[in-house]
């Protein structure tokens, strides 16, 4: 599946496209399919997101899992500071990242 991610323009927080808006939880991410480029262009122009891009992900029991480790780190937070993990995301566990 193809999911969209970027950063919130004002806060900088990592966000994921949930079909209607942007969520800080990757578990909310939905398949953007063929629409990816259009959504990115529209959301970027409306300044609801910054530096958005589409990534490949796999749908798993825990929700979408990005193909690349970089986006998995983005989804949870720095692996060396579990205390700073994205709220409620750490239940996926750090094995999910590596």
């Amino acid at each position: 599946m193809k999911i969209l991610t970027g950063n919130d323009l004002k806060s900088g927080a990592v966000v994921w496209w949930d079909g209607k808006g942007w969520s800080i939880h990757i578990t909310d991410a939905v398949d953007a399919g063929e629409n990816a480029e259009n959504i990115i262009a529209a959301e970027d122009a409306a300044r609801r997101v910054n530096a958005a891009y589409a990534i490949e992900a796999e749908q798993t029991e825990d929700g979408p899992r990005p193909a690349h480790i970089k986006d998995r780190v983005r989804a949870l937070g720095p692996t060396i500071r579990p205390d700073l993990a994205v709220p409620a995301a750490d239940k996926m566990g750090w094995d999910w990242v590596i």
Partner: protein
Amino acid sequence: MYQYDQYDQAMVDARVEEFRDQCHRRLEGKLTEDQFKPLRLQNGLYLQLHAYMLRVAIPYGTLSGTQMHALADIADKYDRGYGHFTTRQNIQYNWIKLEDCGDILADLAKVEMHAIQTSGNCIRNISSDQYAGAAADEVVDPRPYAELLRQWSSFHPEFAHLPRKFKICVIASEKDRAAMRLHDIGINIVKNDEGTLGAAFYVGGGMGRTPMIAPLIREFVPLDQMVTFCEAALRVYNRYGRRDNKYKARIKILVHEMGADEYTRQVEEEFAHLLEQGVEPPTAELDRIRSFFQPPEFVAGLPAKADRSDPDFALWIDRNCSPHKVAGYVSAAISLKPVGGIPGDASAQQMHLMADLAKEYSFDECRVTHAQNIILPHVEIGRLYELWQKLDEADLGTANLDNIGDIIACPGLDYCSLANARSIPVSQKISERFAANGKGELLGELKLKISGCINACGHHHAGHIGILGVDRKGVENYQLLLGGSEAEDVSLAKITGPGFNEDGIVDAVETVADLYLERREDGERFLDTYRRLGMDPFKEALYG
């Protein structure tokens, strides 16, 4: 320490308003991200892996206690309670909101600090020797010259859109503690045969994907022409530096492709022209700046020896204290590398403590080192024990300066959007391994440096042992390098061979360390043994 006058203050205050306005126009849609990006970068604001990151300048690594307190307050008020000291003697915060930036800059301006030109394709923060003004071996305190260059380079209209970033370092001793020759311009203040001070210019060094050691292009620039010479060196770079490929845009590539002789010839030509243009500040300005860097009121006749009966303390003295120019004092290093810790990170609480200790023990001054530690430059030997006890209680008393536990590591894939692999977990594992097996202390001076990608922010090319994280088909992989040095015996490390996985690289480091322990001769450091033996025995031990 340097103190702002009304002009310096007006400059940083105007910058705060300028950046507030730029942020405002970005949020209003008057600036696109492409237009805004260089503006925010020239104010130290990156968009990193998890959030915005703000890099705050610490000119030549010097901080007062008040400034360190303010940095701690920013960590608490606007970030998540900690900051990261960098290899360019700055501090960066990892969880900044764009909408808070104006207020943060205003808070910084209140304590004579800023984030001006801490990123972007411009002249960056000027770095220097962390022992400046204290080191027994310096010919002069290099910081007034660094401050002169800080002011000259701030908002320099001709050099705000260079081909690439530009880093200048100023030192003033034969010993190089600031990786001077791995800078775009490295300046060493020297004394000539007549006893006159001048500046030796090395141009075109750097790490990154094409590491180069800067060649000497002028042995002696009179100090009252130093700014003009910098201006000439920059103008030739701005004219010819490559704009077609950002990976070949640094001045090191220009000097290499043009040849140091031809580059020098052009700089000299431009220099001769610029000498007529009146760009050099008068010597009265240098005198004014120098007056801020007068030695503090040292006490004469203090005891020159500490009571070493506590063995942990004795070890800390041996490892972490450096000779001072005044009898009875030393410079004491606060290691930000506790065993298993995150290199260069300090909590707000630790920053507050270091600020208080700077006030109490070191004439209200501390320094940031390129190896991501903090120095208290002027500590009475007789008060070291109580200082060490306070540090130790706060997990700041680790005795490992320049040892294998004192690892330089870039933020890596845990924080950085450019990284290919994580650096911090590798540094943690190595530090834990060598603390547990007791070999860390046996190995003596062994500088280990880890980068999470070829941009080399973790200085892996300059490590006695270097580690480079790469992406091998989506999996983190680590290459091992040996034989680098950032010091006066500067050299570039060479890669050993195929890379390792995360646990493999820790084993590999132990393998080469063991070979050194086995083969070293009297007084040899790891680097010396490597240079004597060459790469082959290390390869043999690693790959069989």
